[in-house]
């Protein structure tokens, strides 16, 4: 029986997607295990499995991109998948930079839930091919999605910080407590993540503005998405500044970072779906 290219591509995309999900689950199991039982090789296996999942997901995204001739942003499956992939990459980068694996269980759990959800929600088949918008636009979308992924990571790290702080003060220390990273490490990881997010967001916004200017000779300052994105820039910059001040350093800064993510979520969901006309892709 012959299978047409149109039938084969969704199969490839979903097949690779399921395999990457399987690797993320395996990675989560290993990360969760080392929280209770420290094991060097198990930790390395967790990181390798995560890297494997990221690689497979890359091929799934590549397959989708080849079909749409664009970064996968114009359908829910592609957009969520791109977000998860960038979240995985950002975490792996921070893990290597800070030499810290103990938050891997939380990040991979988020990845697993996210990808399982997108497989449930995603419509079968490939999305329609969007109109050609060029590489500048592709960078704009990718960088902004990367910024959201990095902010999501800083949210996870800040929540762990707050839990850890609460546990330290309550003096009821369970087994995983002794395996969690120190408050100082969590603080530095969250800040690194916000730096990555802010950098990506600034570059993404600049590219979006250039692209818009080239297209229409003007900017869309009044678009709700642009307004909320600028607000995100401000609140995260404020976090970076306040987290070094005497009054905010520590748990208060972590709480601020966690709350900032509410605006990111608002921008990614409600603004995209209901408020903006210009940034609504699906």
């Amino acid at each position, binding site marked *: 029986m012959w299978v047409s290219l149109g039938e084969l591509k969704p199969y490839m995309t979903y097949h690779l997607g399921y395999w990457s999900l399987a690797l993320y689950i395996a990675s989560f199991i290993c990360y969760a295990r080392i929280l*209770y*039982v*420290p*094991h*060097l090789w198990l930790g390395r296996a967790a990181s390798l499995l995560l890297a494997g999942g990221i690689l497979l997901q890359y091929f799934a995204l590549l397959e989708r991109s080849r079909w749409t001739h664009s970064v996968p942003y114009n359908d829910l499956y592609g957009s969520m998948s791109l977000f998860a992939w960038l979240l995985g990459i950002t975490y792996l980068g921070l893990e290597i930079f800070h030499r810290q694996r103990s938050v891997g269980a939380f990040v991979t759990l988020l990845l697993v839930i996210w990808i399982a959800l997108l497989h449930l929600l995603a419509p079968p088949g490939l999305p329609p091919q969007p109109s050609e918008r060029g590489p500048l636009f592709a960078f704009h979308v990718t960088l902004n999605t990367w910024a959201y992924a990095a902010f999501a990571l800083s949210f996870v790290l800040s929540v762990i910080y707050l839990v*850890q702080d609460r546990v*330290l*003060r309550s*003096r*009821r*220390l369970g*087994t995983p*407590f*002794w395996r*969690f*990273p*120190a*408050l*100082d*490490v969590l603080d530095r990881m969250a800040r690194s993540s916000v730096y990555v997010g802010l950098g990506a967001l600034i570059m993404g916004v600049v590219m979006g503005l250039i692209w818009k200017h080239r297209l229409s000779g003007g900017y869309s300052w009044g678009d709700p998405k642009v307004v909320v994105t600028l607000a995100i820039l401000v609140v995260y910059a404020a976090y970076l500044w306040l987290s070094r*001040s*005497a*009054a*905010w*350093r*520590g*748990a*208060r800064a972590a709480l601020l970072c966690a709350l900032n993510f509410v605006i990111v979520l608002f921008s990614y969901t409600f603004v995209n779906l209901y408020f903006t006309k210009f940034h609504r892709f699906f």
Partner: protein
Amino acid sequence: MGTAAKAERSGGAVRIHIALIGCNHRTAPVEFRERVSFTPEQAVHAAGELRERGILEEAVVLSTCNRSELYGVPGETGPAAAEAMEMFFTSFHQIPRAELDGRLYRWMGADAVRHLFRVAAGIDSMMLGEAEILGQLRTAYNQALDHGSTGPVLNRMFQGALEVGKRVRAETEVGARPMSVALAGVKLAERVFGNLKGHSALIVGAGAVAEQVVEHLRNRGIGSVRVVNRSYEHAAELARKMGGEAVAWESLESVVGVPDILVTSVGGTGPVLTREMLERAIAARTGRPVFVVDLGVPRNVSADAAGLYNLYLYNIDDLGEIVEQNKKSREAEIPRAEALISEHLSKFEAWRAAIEAGSIVDDLRDRFHQHRESLIREKLAEMKDVSPGERERIAHITEELIERVLEHPTQKMRQGGRMRGHLAGLDALRHLFGLDEEKD
């Protein structure tokens, strides 16, 4: 197989015997343990003498503050070997035999191996899961190895024990959580600051537990330590001992805002550090967290300081409770540690079985060849018309028959992993073929 096991051939078969005698903190009081302990030199001398006297073919003496144990591969089997080891133990330490009653334990074979593995894992220690015993065991073994007191059996056994010790600490929580107040304080500080290198500490008072805290901090590479005490001489003495800096009591308020870790251990009444002092200290640190360990009774730090932002305060009761929680947690890990010990014990027993099984095949082959030769001699003497060529063919065929018969059991028995749990079967085999009878 090396010389030791060869020398253990009794009744034609290689039998690996292992014996252990000793006492520990559970069986003997400290006064007795002091009398039967071995210095490193005495341990070497004792192991050598045990071998010279023919009591043991391989020997390792393990002596720590909580145990004195003799491990060996005896030439004789069973209680006789242990008896000889006990005699040696009493004569070496010049202790009347009667004093040993109930204080010395004896383990033979797999039980002795299991005991050693439990010791290496820290399960047999006074402080469950302590790390020091693994280093002490390694030192004792290396010393015996360097002086030629070990052989293939004890080498295998002690290397296995060191591996078990490492795995138990890496794969279970038996040794993970702090079990002393001082270490708990330092570990908690690590939960706030991460690596303590480059951080600073201020010790207020000069109590014994505070000294232990400083030692743990030093082991973790703390950047700088300052000591403040009412008596400047005491402060200077502790500072000198710990490589820190002594500060006058009057300067306490001016230096309290500098360190990341504060340890207080001052006798007397009333708090030494008030909420206001600590508030000023945190402000001076631009809000960077301060970790305070209050070891004083009555407390040295005002209780209301606990609510200060970015101040983590633990008093002696808090730390005591954490140690108690950790103790329970370590105890809950014992079954997992025991499972690892059983796994390694099975490996050791499989190795032992493979060695012993290999010797049975060799003995069976010898026995069959003896029968073959006598049978051929007897039968060919009756068969006068058989040519020399035919005689040679008959000899060749019978030889091949024996090899074919033994081919399968040889393969099976040399596969150590599959021989686990068949040691009793091997004994039956020896008995069945008369291999356990004394050779003429």
